[in-house]
């Protein structure tokens, strides 16, 4: 089996416009959550969110594309993908047998919300219609990076970018590609804010994953990408090896569309599958970046899944969603980048806002930034509407 290495990471989120800024913010244990500024919604002032602290114009300036009229989803995605590409030491000539798998759940919905009424009244087809499609951001990013060999978009709700990472790794392992940029991008939109609000899943205050008194999710936005390369390709060009994707698991919980099974059975199966693919025992996991959304159902059932997979002792674990918000289609990518960063820095990110364990499983997450000199294996989990569960296992290169 071909080994798959992570050679570059890039991320823009509520923690900052790039990985270095995010690392700095994480090291100060400073949350990126705050009032909603950039989405015009009736929910403004009622909820906090993990908004990227730049307007669309500021993002366009950062991207050096001031006149391109790009959606926020595309701008976020391009900035993070460009950072990952550069971090891997790649240039315009490095596009042979290279792909881009990008996830998004809202695509250009934000633009559509803005212009749709005018469109209905004016009855002309304006340019924004073409940006509505989820794949529009992917197409733009691939054109800018010069990637042509395999370009596709994934939407599996909250597991989208984790699934994009697995699809990319498989394409390398099966010899279809030598290199693939994987991850996802999502901007905050009225569509998702109102949708999750209708499900009564939003916490007006900063979320408290794994706490007995948790009240729900804070939505977030952002983009994060990893450059994955086949071992031979990476070694040949003496690429920096940041981590190895040593295992993954994909399952369905087969219980309910919007709720996890009482034992988190699908997540259990996904974590077992990832460990089996990596040929590692549960005790090898040095840090678990949990899905930890802060909803009553998720944190209860995910905790039961952790108890079942790690019966002797749960590994140090945390949810980073109190830092970033839940960025939906970008969440799996953001958490994969944070997992690789944890491995590279020998740091475990704390679970902010935790005070009291959930009585049913009694799990206590890591509460303050922890230095771990020998962090070898980090597991990251995602779960989504429709029952999709995904586990990613990153190991020292």
């Amino acid at each position: 089996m071909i080994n798959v290495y992570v050679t570059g990471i890039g991320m823009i989120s509520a923690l900052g416009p790039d990985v270095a800024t995010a690392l700095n913010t994480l090291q100060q244990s400073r949350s990126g959550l705050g009032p909603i500024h950039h989405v015009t919604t009736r929910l403004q002032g009622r909820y906090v969110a993990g908004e990227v602290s730049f307007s669309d114009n500021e993002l366009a300036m950062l991207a050096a594309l001031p006149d391109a009229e790009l959606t926020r989803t595309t701008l976020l995605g391009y900035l993070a993908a460009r950072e990952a590409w550069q971090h891997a030491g790649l240039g315009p000539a490095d596009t042979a047998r290279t792909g881009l798998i990008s996830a998004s759940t809202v695509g250009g919905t934000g633009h559509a919300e803005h212009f749709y009424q005018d469109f209905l009244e004016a009855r002309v087809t304006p340019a924004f219609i073409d940006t509505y499609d989820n794949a529009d951001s992917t197409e733009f990013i691939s054109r800018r990076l010069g990637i042509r060999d395999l370009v596709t978009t994934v939407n599996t709700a909250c597991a989208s970018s984790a699934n994009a990472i697995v699809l990319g790794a498989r394409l390398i392992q099966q010899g279809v590609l030598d290199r693939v940029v994987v991850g996802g991008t999502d901007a905050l939109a009225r569509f998702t804010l109102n949708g999750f609000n209708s499900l009564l899943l939003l916490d007006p205050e900063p979320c408290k994953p794994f706490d007995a008194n948790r009240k729900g999710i804070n939505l977030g936005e952002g983009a994060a990408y990893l450059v994955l390369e086949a071992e031979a390709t990476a070694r040949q060009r003496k690429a920096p090896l940041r981590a190895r994707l040593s295992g993954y698991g994909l399952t369905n919980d087969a219980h309910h569309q919007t709720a996890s099974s009482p034992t988190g059975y699908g997540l259990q199966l996904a974590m077992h599958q990832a460990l089996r693919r990596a040929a590692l025992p549960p005790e090898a996991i040095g840090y678990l970046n949990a899905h930890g959304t802060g909803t009553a159902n998720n944190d209860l059932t995910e905790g039961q899944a952790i108890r079942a997979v790690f019966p002797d002792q749960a590994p140090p674990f945390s949810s980073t969603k109190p830092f970033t918000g839940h960025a939906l289609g970008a969440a799996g990518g953001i958490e994969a980048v944070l997992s690789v960063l944890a491995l590279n820095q020998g740091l475990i990110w704390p679970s902010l806002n935790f005070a009291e364990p959930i009585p049913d499983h009694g799990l206590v997450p890591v509460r303050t930034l922890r230095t771990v000199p020998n962090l070898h294996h980090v597991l990251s989990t995602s779960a989504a509407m429709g029952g999709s569960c995904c586990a990613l296992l990153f190991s020292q290169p």
Partner: protein
Amino acid sequence: METSITATCAIRGRQIFLNGTLLFEAPEDTAADLSDFLIAGYRHFGVSYPKFFKMDVLSKLAFLTAELLLPKAGLQDRLRPADIGVVLTNRSSSLLTDVVHQQSIAEPASHFPSPAVFVYTLPNIAIGEISIRHQLTGENSLFVTESFEPAMLVPYVSQLLAEKSCQACLCGWLEAGLTGHEAFFYLVENHASPAPTPRPHRVPDVELLYSQPHYS
């Protein structure tokens, strides 16, 4: 170890076929609305699953197709739930339901997003309904493509079976869009001995099964 297609089910127009045989045809006057037609099919086959009525049309279409295919195939007697995968493709994603949700938040005066609608603004939810009903915990994917493309789907599923990510896979096309609907599901299985009616899992065979029966 051999890999074969062991069963098919198709819902087209107002007709339902199992393994190529027409089993149900709704009278023309009851089939104008897709949801009504699928409910007529549900009643005709004596299915009992009240949650069916809460599903959006894409999920109703997926549910009914899988409902007619899976129990008869006896797959679950032979395999563990975690060994059965689901890989579907469609063209219009969840567009029919996206439109309904969008309309519910478009007008400030009648702003009323419904959780029962929002949940279905993702086509994977249809796979979720199948997984919940039949307790399938294997991996699943839904690919959005211009049309039914066996040349893409067959190698993908073959690889899943070859690497033992699953032992069997429910595959096919699940489309409900602004201009029409069509479901064509087939089962692919790894098995030790030859299947009773061997149908190799290859692109031309899937194309042939897809083209038969023809629309009448």
